[in-house]
């Protein structure tokens, strides 16, 4: 792993270099919201943020995705679609980057998803350490840090007038090929400074979730009335799942005109009763309790059992945006305390 230094004044040069060979996606401010979108100039991005409104998972797992196109009729033709060219996601937070590593499990599983995976291969993640976690951030509850370089290709950490750069893998090195004039080798003092910045950010995180033994615990309390208490106030709006960086459910529908059509994949949410409604009219998850429970179990029980990782990164979006204050930190912590 190479440790380098990038002067802040050189950041726009770095982005300009990246733009030559890649599509670059970075946080952009519009009105009150921060969203990841394509930039054409370094000045368009805004790095003074905690987290984007929509997690950058939407750059790899599009909300609306054409799977293939077709022409209806007796001489039906099916046409595949191109999946994009080289892409760089700049400024992704370590928590969101981890979520993409978590999504890999789902999309690589028994059935490979070519759309996500080819995009993933073509995408380099240039992370930016989080230096001002917000009220509901709790990434440290999963042994991670707001300045973790584990899941990105390159990680930048703001250490005053320069960025401390960690080249994590070959992909990161390839990305910066030919830019050696921008980067200098880091000194011991820079590494120390990064540690300080990281510690400061970690200390700012004041909420913690108790996840010790939660996987086994959830196995024991599936029928517990606790879930009814938690779920009864849910209005089923689905914001928590749409904006969760690790949620990845989708619905597939055909859209067509008289002459052409396409099979389209769109995000879906398990908070909707329609999500599990079967054609017969039977719904295996008929009540809010079943659905809210499913969200927690999927993240804290099924996923760890299948892939050995909790499917929550502690970004806090679902807590920030829940209109009725269903707080996953509180729910999981309390679930751990419920008497089985």
């Amino acid at each position: 792993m190479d440790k380098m230094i990038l002067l802040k004044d050189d950041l726009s040069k770095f982005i300009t270099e990246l733009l030559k060979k890649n599509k670059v996606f970075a946080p952009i401010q519009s009105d009150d919201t921060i969203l990841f979108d394509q930039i054409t100039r370094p000045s368009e991005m805004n790095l003074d943020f905690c987290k984007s409104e929509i997690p950058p998972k939407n750059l790899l797992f599009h909300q609306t995705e054409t799977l293939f196109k077709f022409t209806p009729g007796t001489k039906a033709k099916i046409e595949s679609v191109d999946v994009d060219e080289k892409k760089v996601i700049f400024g992704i937070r370590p928590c969101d980057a981890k979520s993409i590593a978590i999504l890999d499990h789902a999309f690589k599983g028994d059935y490979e998803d070519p759309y996500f995976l080819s995009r993933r291969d073509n995408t380099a993640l240039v992370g930016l350490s989080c230096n001002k976690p917000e009220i509901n951030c709790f990434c440290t509850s999963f042994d991670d840090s707001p300045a973790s370089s584990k899941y990105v290709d390159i990680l930048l950490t703001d250490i005053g007038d320069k960025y401390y750069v960690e080249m994590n893998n070959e992909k990161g090195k390839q990305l910066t090929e030919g830019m050696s004039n921008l980067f200098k080798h880091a000194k011991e003092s820079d590494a120390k400074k990064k540690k300080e910045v990281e510690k400061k950010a970690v200390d700012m995180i004041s909420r913690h979730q108790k996840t010790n033994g939660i996987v086994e615990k959830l196995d024991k309390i599936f029928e517990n009335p606790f879930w009814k208490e938690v779920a009864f106030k849910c209005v089923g709006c689905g914001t928590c799942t749409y904006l969760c960086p690790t949620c990845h459910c989708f619905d597939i529908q055909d859209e067509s005109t008289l002459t052409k059509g396409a099979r389209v994949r769109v995000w879906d949410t398990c908070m909707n009763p329609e999500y599990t409604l079967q054609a017969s009219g039977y719904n295996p998850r008929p009540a809010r309790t079943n659905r809210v429970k499913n969200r927690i179990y999927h993240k804290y029980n099924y996923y760890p059992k299948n892939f050995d990782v909790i499917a929550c990164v502690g970004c806090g979006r679902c807590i920030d945006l829940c209109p009725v204050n269903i707080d996953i930190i509180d729910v999981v912590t309390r679930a751990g305390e419920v008497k089985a």
Partner: protein
Amino acid sequence: MVDEKELRDVVKKTISRDDVKYVVGYEKGTYGFQATPCFAYKPEDAEKFIFSPLCVHNLTVFPMLEEKPPLRKGEEPDTRKIGVVVKGCDSRAIVQILQEKGLERDKVVIIGIPCSGVIDPKKIEAKFPGHIKKVEVNDEDDKFAVTVDGKTQKIPKDELMPEKCKTCEYPNPVLYDILIGKEIKSKKKEDYKKVNAFEKKSMKEKWDYWEKQFEKCIRCYACRNACPLCYCKECMVDQLNPQWVRRSVNLSENTAWNLLRAFHLAGRCIGCEQCERACPMGIPLMKLNKKIEKEIKEMFEYEAGISAEEKPLLAMFKPDDPEEFIL
């Protein structure tokens, strides 16, 4: 200021009745400035009930969310009443639902609370960022007394109130079984200042504005689910045959959804602002709702959620309704 002891006593009494299933009210949330809906099934549960300016939720959505799972053999349906704690605006939602016969009057016990304005959680969180410990907020005439870390600050109400409270004409519940505290007098008047200002813009400016807003929409339908009046068994956007609005997220479908949502609330929206509060993308949905509210007031002299006996706006007519637009 509402006496919380009185509230708890009333809730206790209500839930002790044999014909009441549960009572929905508010309790303190899990962090900072949050309040959250809570349910009392037994008299003891009433102890956690609160009422403060942080109680922004419209709880009348809950009776409409009642699920009726299929009964087992020999099982009787639970026909007991649901108790709901309502503010002035929330009570109008109940009235509107009763008017549409979405709910029967004898299926709810309405516990009314006169309210002189709540706090917009987004505004107060912007004022005290990152505050996690629970706080005390009280209502003091024209100010909110916010106690954070033992220090009390008095903040003028206008700085923290959501738009709906600034022009609220119904601080007292219009319909209730039990009223807590005394009715309050209010001189506030809805003058549609913002709607009027927006109307002055040119067609192009208007569309440019809404195009940007609708493009943001991620079609999570949180606005619909948070709305006490969106209670159709099957929403038209979930319908598959015919499928009026496609599931794809793009400007065309987003616009169709947002226009139809607003239209379906014409003469029904009571302005509780839950849709806007629930919207994760910050789309100003109330701007559409308020416009319709203003127009129907002018055209049909009708206001939603005032009388349960009146017929729904779009299910009745007057022979002399405005028709200058007809060829």
